[in-house]
């Protein structure tokens, strides 16, 4: 990475681009808040007045759950990305050509623009929604150690999610239409990432299956660390597993790239 500067500038442009559509922004933040409300009320109804459930990780209180929801709803703006759509649209229209004529690595270009968008999302969606959620529903303050480990795990989660989406997007190079496959992966991701339901509630066999998938590494693991459901040593192990997944997905994406760029067909003359 000898040319870091261009990727930083690239991310800056992606950040600035987000300011172009104000109405769009208002709907996004409104949507996030609505989603937060809906989830909190669903879990309140499910867990009842005394609000305690015993699960595979021990007793979970309503306050645990509310904290989980606030965190998962806010960090979703960082972990979720539109990399698949971006690649898909560019391949379909042939616009991809305009990105490949640049002396830049395609993956890093996409990563930069994702990070630029994330900075915007962090400042203008995550922070307001988080503050609102904490005031409205309360929050379990984590220990400083857990908070620090959480941030580390969250960054890993963002990277893992990027690589998953990037790899799926690359399949679009090979097969012009990957819509149904994307939908399938998207559903797998919602289920196993823990963005909607913590994996605590999974039956044993499903929890076992999830251990072999990269998806829980994105939402579930970071939030579990934040809530202090594992001790520090376990947290380190979890972060280690995340790093392992990053290496694996990096390799897979690299292979896919090498295979697909050779077979790239640029649409529309």
């Amino acid at each position, binding site marked *: 990475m000898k040319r870091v500067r261009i990727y930083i500038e690239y991310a800056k*442009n992606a950040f600035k681009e987000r300011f*172009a559509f104000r109405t769009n922004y208002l709907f996004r933040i409104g949507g996030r808040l609505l989603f937060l409300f809906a989830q909190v009320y669903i879990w309140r109804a499910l867990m009842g007045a005394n609000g305690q459930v015993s699960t595979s990780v021990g007793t979970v209180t309503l306050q645990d759950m509310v904290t989980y929801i606030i965190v998962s709803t806010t960090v979703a703006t960082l972990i979720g990305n539109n990399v698949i759509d971006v690649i898909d649209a560019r391949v379909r229209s042939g616009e991809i050509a305009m990105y490949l004529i640049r002396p830049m690595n395609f993956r890093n270009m996409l990563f930069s623009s994702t990070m630029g968008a994330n900075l915007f999302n962090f400042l203008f969606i995550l922070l307001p929604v988080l503050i609102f959620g904490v005031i409205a529903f309360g929050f379990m303050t984590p220990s400083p150690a857990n908070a620090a480990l959480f941030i580390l795990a969250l960054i890993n989660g963002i990277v893992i999610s990027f690589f998953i989406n990037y790899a799926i997007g690359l399949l679009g190079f090979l097969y012009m239409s990957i819509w149904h496959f994307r939908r399938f992966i998207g559903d797998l991701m919602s289920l196993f990432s823990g963005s909607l339901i913590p994996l605590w509630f999974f039956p044993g066999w499903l929890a076992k299956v999830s251990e072999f998938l990269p998806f829980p590494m994105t939402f579930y693991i970071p939030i579990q660390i934040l809530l202090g459901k594992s001790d520090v040593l376990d947290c380190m192990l979890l972060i280690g597993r995340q790093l392992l997944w990053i290496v694996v997905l990096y390799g897979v994406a690299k292979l896919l790239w090498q295979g697909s760029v050779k077979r790239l067909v640029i649409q529309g*003359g």
Partner: protein
Amino acid sequence: MVIRVENLTKEFKQRKARAGLMGAIKDLFHREYRIIKAVDHISFSINKGEVVGYIGPNGAGKSTTMKILCGILVPTNGLAEVNGIIPYERREQNARKIGVVFGQRTQLWWDLPLSETLDLMKYMYDIPNQRYQENLRSFSEILGIDKFIHTPVRQLSLGQRMRADLACALLHDPDILYLDEPTIGLDVVVKENVREFLREVNKSRHTTILLATHDMFDIEKVCSRALVIHQGKIMYDGSLDKLKNDYGSESTLKAELADTVAGIDGLSIPGIHEMNLNGTNLIVKYDKNAVNSAAILRWLADRTIIRDFRVTEASVEDIIRKMYKGFSQ
């Protein structure tokens, strides 16, 4: 030699879609493909500072060749070498030394002011600040981009966008400029502006230019050499003058005579293809290699009074139209 292409071939697999509902169902189970040779064993080379017009009908293989040279398509067979490297093996390295404008697309950031994209180029190609400012100033002078530099790109007119894309492709002083239909959809004034700019860039920076276009005026005004491609094969490679000589030897003489002359139809000088007399207006089409206009005028002057006359040579457009017709027969 900056560009060397040898026996370059690019094949595409195209799905044969069967007609009708039954055909669509059959396609689900068994697909048939046919191989399209977009580029078929072509060879040519281009020297530094040359401005080459790349001409051919739609689907002839122009864009495919360009994309291979840009390093974004991998050929099926053969070799392309640009500045001593294989572009599709070292795409990023190749990209640092080329400028690309695909007329139908843009590399500008759609939702940001133009200045943001231009600024980005500085970092993308590591352009020294002083050089960047110089180039920006000189492009502003010729292309007038300073007038809309702070406007979001999505609000630019096509002509403005194209000028901006051109500037963007040249800020880093590339050795080679690839242009694919850079004047498509532009009005006459902007077209002329773009051509003037390209001539200027070639003259002052010795930038090698490969220009694919359907607009023969682009070729005539900017290029010194023509490369004609049809169905993936090179049909002509040589100077524009030679092209005119070899294929465009038909000239037209238009004369206004004092009065109608009987028997003038009997003009029988070898080399005359066609003559039309309409009242006092005479149009003679002739092969300028076989007969010259002076001989025709002398023959006319012996029989009548010539009030006025004009000789026009075949334009590149005429020549290419004839060549295309020849191909399709």
